[in-house]
């Protein structure tokens, strides 16, 4: 229907992220259809039931169960991480709506794995944004919402109920009391750019996931967010010892994660 969408048949969600993470069990998607060909290819943990949206391979360790349908996920502030979460809808071949983000970089979203052919944009949901969000939750698998105002408890409960009823996922830019899961970027560092030369090539970000209940334990992982080609990948824990540059110590005391040696990466 739309010209140009055909170009993205080869740039299907998940496939590039898979290539850069080097994992053979990546989320393979049939080009053009967005359908998952076989549950076994996509990892047993995320497709154990249809009660969760599978996430991009890079987020598997942070969200082992995927995004439970009917849940609310909060992200601290607007960042590429929100788009990576929204790409979960495309992994499952579903539709995604983004409301309240007039300055969205669609190219970045596409590179992160979000299918632009299955994307609705509502730049300004206006005063009646709770109704708009409720309508979108009815139609789309995932709704990324930046509320124009701080939502009242009543609005929050109503939208949570709508999401539960329709089995869709609400990803909120900002804070949301009662969110089942919360992902934030704790630290971030750009590579490839120096004082006066180079260019922005990739960013290393430490993403922390907190949650309630089963997802209660706090997890942190280092991700390429974005990687050199715009895709998101897990930053392999390097054996390079202490890391130079703006990063702190070589080991993260809280989580026991090795900080990767980003110096050794071939940029570009």
């Amino acid at each position, binding site marked *: *229907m739309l*010209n140009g969408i055909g170009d*993205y048949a080869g740039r299907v969600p998940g496939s590039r992220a898979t290539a850069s993470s080097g994992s053979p069990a990546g989320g393979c998607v049939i080009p053009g259809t967005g359908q998952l060909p076989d549950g076994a290819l996509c990892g047993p943990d995320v497709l154990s039931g249809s009660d969760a949206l599978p996430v991009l391979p890079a987020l598997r360790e942070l969200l082992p169960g995927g995004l439970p349908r009917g849940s609310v996920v909060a992200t601290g502030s607007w960042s*590429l991480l929100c788009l990576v979460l929204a790409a979960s809808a495309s992994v499952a071949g579903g539709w995604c709506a983004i409301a309240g983000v007039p*300055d*969205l970089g669609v190219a970045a979203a596409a590179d992160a794995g979000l299918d632009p052919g299955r994307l609705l*944009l509502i730049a300004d949901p206006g005063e009646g944004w709770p109704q*708009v969000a409720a309508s979108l939750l009815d139609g789309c698998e995932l709704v990324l919402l930046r509320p124009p105002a701080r939502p009242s408890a009543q609005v929050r409960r109503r939208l949570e109920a709508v999401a539960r009823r329709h089995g869709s996922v609400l990803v909120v830019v900002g804070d949301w009391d009662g969110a089942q899961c919360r992902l934030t970027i704790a630290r971030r*560092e750009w590579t490839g750019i120096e004082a006066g030369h180079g*260019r922005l090539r990739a960013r290393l970000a430490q993403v922390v996931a907190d949650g309630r209940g089963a997802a209660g334990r706090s997890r942190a992982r280092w991700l390429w967010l974005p990687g050199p080609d715009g895709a998101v990948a897990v930053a392999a824990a390097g054996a390079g010892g202490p890391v130079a540059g703006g990063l702190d110590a070589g080991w993260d005391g809280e989580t026991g994660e090795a900080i990767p040696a980003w110096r050794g990466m071939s940029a570009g």
Partner: protein
Amino acid sequence: MSSARGTPQRVRGTPQRVRGTPQRVRGTPQRVLAVWCPDWPPDAPDTGPEARAFEQVITAVEEFCPRVEVVRPGMCAIDARGPARYFGGEEALAGKITDAVAALGIACQAGIADGLFAAQLAARVPAGAGGAEARCGGSGDRPRQKVIDPRIHHLTGRAVAWAGAPGVIVAPGRTPGFLAPYPVSVLDIPGFVDLLPRLGIWTLGDFARLPAAEAANRFGAPGERAHRLARGLDPRPLTPRQPSADLSVQIEFDPPAGQSEPVVFAAKALAGRMHAGLAARGLACVRVQVQATYEDGQDLTRLWRHDGLLSALAVAERVRWQLDSWRAGQDARGGGPGTGDRAEASLVGGITRLRMIPDQLVRDEGHQLGLWGDAVISDRVARAAIRVQAMLGHEAVLRPVLAGGRDPAEQVTLAPFGDSRAPLLPGGRPWPGRIPAPAPATVYPVPRPALVTDDSGTAVGVTGRAVVSAPPVLLSADGGPWLAVTAWAGPWPVTERWWDAAGGRRRARFQLVTEDGNGWLAAVQDGQWLIEASYD
């Protein structure tokens, strides 16, 4: 009822106009007058306020003929036969109409030919390239194609300034000759017009000389359509049988709808019903007539070009255009300054009935969906999107199409849900100087002003030879707090469209990283720092 003077084919397709129509000789060509306003480019979006500004032209043309067909913003057409008799000839009619539109301060040309396709081309013949001379020829015997050489027009047409000459008038029966020198690219059938030159067929005349059966045999439905156009006929033969059922649809509003929004919302469902009724009989309509009846019995009727291509949403958007323009006209005519706001909010009187009449029925040839890449929209998604559109307006729900271009903002074309739109700039090309990957997550539709200073507090500048005056140290985006710059790169000069005084620009791009870990895409243009995007 002047509209009853159509050709026999048209009469067959429109049962409500059969009554009282005199018998005419079969094949009498239809005389069409097309009005072309060059201020609306052909690739402009066909909805939105700019498109609706074309309404004043339609109103001016309506003074001459009540049945104006809107082809697209910038082009409308009327059946010239009746008005030409009344106003003293086709030449006088064309002159009067262009004068009336020019009185509004809008550049305009008019052309008359047999059939809409030729009339559109006749209207676009530039002044000074033989057009005026041809007009002086009047109804003489001289073959017009010798006076007008459209091949020259086609090459020089864009460079010739509009000088008030009303296009050309092609004498009855001379349309095939008028069309013959035009290149086949004027047919505007994607994929097909690229093929013909490779087969050695350069002009419409060459193509028209092929046997019609062979053209249909070799090129299929688009070939048949193109061949009929090249011969100066209607693109598709009108369906020869009279439809047994009334295919018009209508909805009553009780109480009358005072706001336009519920009418537009109902129009979507109504258009869907009309399309379903047509599809069940394998038909499509060339035009759709939308008739809104007000409380005081007044009818507001307009014809819209359809060609079987408009979605239900697109038809509804035209209904919105029709209602809005009528209201704007009411404000301009009757309302004083005090009535402006109230009239904006509610229609005068309210609408009691909305009716859609499919006009000029043709065989539906269908549209082939692409095998790969077309995202199929499920009913569930469409329902949600339409509900949001009912709340916020048609343009509020957008679908992105990735396009080409250098700026991050240029690389996306947005189309309202329900409309299809090609990318404004073609993708899949190198676009030297485009921003390299990774793409920024935040792209400001309008770049935000910024301040960048060096360590002494003076603003950082870039010379004409792309040398930066001092390393940037502090950045303040859009009046925000000052942030220390930890890394930077640039300047990368970009000079775009230097040959174009209005559209050309020079920029020097930078990438900056500030102390909070944020990456910025900035540019210096005319000494002013702008933030184009942010790598959040």
